[in-house]
């Protein structure tokens, strides 16, 4: 594993090995002194061409917990504002001796392009509508914690599937661990096909006997583009107590955040015991520590 761009070509063993490492990291985070020297001397750059506070913070904390040096590059405060290209930005960082780049961009493929320009490891921190592999890994980790195994488990992903990098990466990763992924959303927000997932415009079909439900954030820009009507979406696709009754009892709820309360998810459910949102955030740091470790040090422990 040289880069983490998506899960194309990944084996179950590779995923499980990464999640095993994440479990070790999770233990580290429970200790009073939450720091190990594993990445001492390495430098990790978070390069966010699209703003995102939570993913960037999670990656930076993960790198620091492993004693790596961290440099942070955010578009809003950078020379991109002065017209510098992504390539020139990355080449500038390359000249500073960066070992790993966490790249977030609003356009699909920017992390792939970056691998042609820099020598260091590239981690996709979310590229447009394409992929968000560390989100999928932390979702898988959280689901495994809650369900024990994903073998034969039905996972429902609900919302704007077409434009969701979280849904795309989930559909790529979860079946590798034996899960059956169902994606439900309004017809205009469903892709023509999504390898790894069954697609349905019927929320009920996806929720029926589901072992877990992942709720996606509804992006405001879809409404602005005239693709859906907000009231209609809430009426037909919001996850409510009643609809959740279709799923298995105690089926957990996941959300990648940030959440639009009372849009994709009924407010009280967000704070209920079934919500694993806090666990997701905690596990995100451990999973990202594991990814950095695998990319920079290798698998041997």
């Amino acid at each position, binding site marked *: 594993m040289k880069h983490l761009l998506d899960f194309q070509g990944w084996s179950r063993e590779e995923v499980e090995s990464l999640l095993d490492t994440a479990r070790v990291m999770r233990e580290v985070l429970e200790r009073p002194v939450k720091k190990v020297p594993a990445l001492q001397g390495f430098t990790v750059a978070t390069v966010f061409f699209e703003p995102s506070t939570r993913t960037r913070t999670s990656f930076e904390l993960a790198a620091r917990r492993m004693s790596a040096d961290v440099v942070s590059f955010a578009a809003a405060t950078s020379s991109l504002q002065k017209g510098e*290209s*992504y*390539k020139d930005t990355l080449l500038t960082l390359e000249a500073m001796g960066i070992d790993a780049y966490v790249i977030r*961009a*609003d*356009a*699909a*493929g*920017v992390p*792939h*392009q970056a691998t042609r320009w820099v020598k260091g490891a590239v981690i996709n921190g979310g*590229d*447009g*509508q*394409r*992929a968000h592999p560390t989100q999928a890994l932390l979702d898988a980790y959280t689901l495994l914690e809650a369900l024990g195994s994903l073998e034969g488990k039905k996972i429902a992903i609900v919302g704007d599937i*077409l434009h969701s*990098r979280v849904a*795309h990466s989930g559909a790529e990763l979860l079946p590798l661990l034996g899960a059956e992924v169902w994606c439900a959303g309004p017809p205009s927000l469903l*892709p*023509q*096909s*999504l*390898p790894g997932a069954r697609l349905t415009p019927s929320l009920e079909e996806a929720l029926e006997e589901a072992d877990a439900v992942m709720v996606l954030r509804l992006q405001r820009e879809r409404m602005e*583009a005239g693709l859906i009507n907000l009231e209609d979406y809430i009426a037909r696709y919001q996850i409510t107590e009643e609809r959740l009754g279709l799923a298995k009892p105690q089926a957990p709820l996941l959300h990648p955040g940030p959440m639009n309360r009372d849009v994709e998810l009924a407010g009280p459910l967000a704070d209920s015991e079934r919500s694993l949102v806090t666990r997701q955030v905690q596990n995100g740091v451990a999973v990202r520590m594991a990814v950095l470790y695998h990319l920079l040090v290798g698998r041997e422990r």
Partner: protein
Amino acid sequence: MILIKNVKLVDARGEQGPLDVLIGEGRILSLEGGEASLVIDGTGKLLAPGFLDLHAHLREPGEEVKEDLASGLLAAVRGGYTDLVSMPNTKPPVDTPEAVRALKAKALRLGLARLHPGAALTLGQEGEHLTQAGGLKEAGTALLTDDGRTNEDAGVLAAGLLQAAPLGLPVAVHAEDASLRRQGVMNDGPLAHRLGLPGNPPEAEAARIARDLEVLRYALRRSKATPRLHVQHLSTRRGVELIREARRAGLPVTAEATPHHLTLTEEALKGFDPLFKVAPPLRAQEDQEALLEGLLDGTLDAIATDHAPHTLAEKERDLLRAPFGIPSLEVAFPLLYTELHLKRGFPLPRLVALFTDGPREVLGLKPLHLEEGAEASLVLLDPKEAPVDPSRFASKARYSPWAGWVLAGWPVLTLVEGRVVHRVE
């Protein structure tokens, strides 16, 4: 006097030779040899009429950092083109007789390929107010188009066809429904959805062609002279079907296809390289097959490059922000000679027709055939293979989707009215 000895001849009518072609006074004097000051051995090579490109973006005036007349017209003659139609979407757009005259005069001074400037159909290419077609025609414009933009106002397009009809000027359209295309950057379908890139559906092209054919019917009904519609860079199976039906029904419509739509598909986007970002986008295999059928059965008239140079830095932006366009003037013929003729058995005279008589007819020019007395605008093609090397392009766009492809049929000599404008020793 130039003598090209022992050379095989090919034009839209067929192949003949080898013969000895004597050239002087800008004409082919004889196919039976004669005395000449310059003797070129044509053994193993092919002589064809000079090519005409209906669709090239030369970027002058205003965007000379991407291309200019000197670099673009040199690229053209290196590609075997003796004639070229430039697109008017420059900065500012070419929408006045003065601008057309300035381009023509400058191209004449350069003495490379002959320039037939395309002019805007509407002022500033804004799709609202028609340009002065008569004055533009007088200044030497070859066709009217708002290419780069889509003609959203059908009434303006109808009026444009009507005013161009008595002048014999074709109106060329970039047929995409902009409201259906939206922000699409690649062909819409499972692959675009998987790659997370906004899709531009094939139906956006088909819908706009269907509308434009109705606009043409309307103009035809209203006009005494024949209005002529030319559909640019056809890319979809459905688009080909619509043009085929329209021609069977006798509508005065012509169409072109590009080298990239004929040799590349959407699969090229898998590597996330904006070099392959183009409008209309690279489509599916079935669309490419339909284009080939259309080239064979006469539904399509011409292969046109849509040569669209940008700076490398622009093409290295991300896929949402990189500009649309693929440069191809210098590789178009060898590319299609190799990929269509040599590899797939596409008949050579038909391929040559798509570079010569086909596009000439779109502009209302007479056919150009290799016979005594014909104008000596010619290209000599070498069947020797060589890889595409963009670092040696005359175009300012020194990159190519076909870099490294090994092609045959490279132009080694280009003559415009008997004058050598390109020669590889």
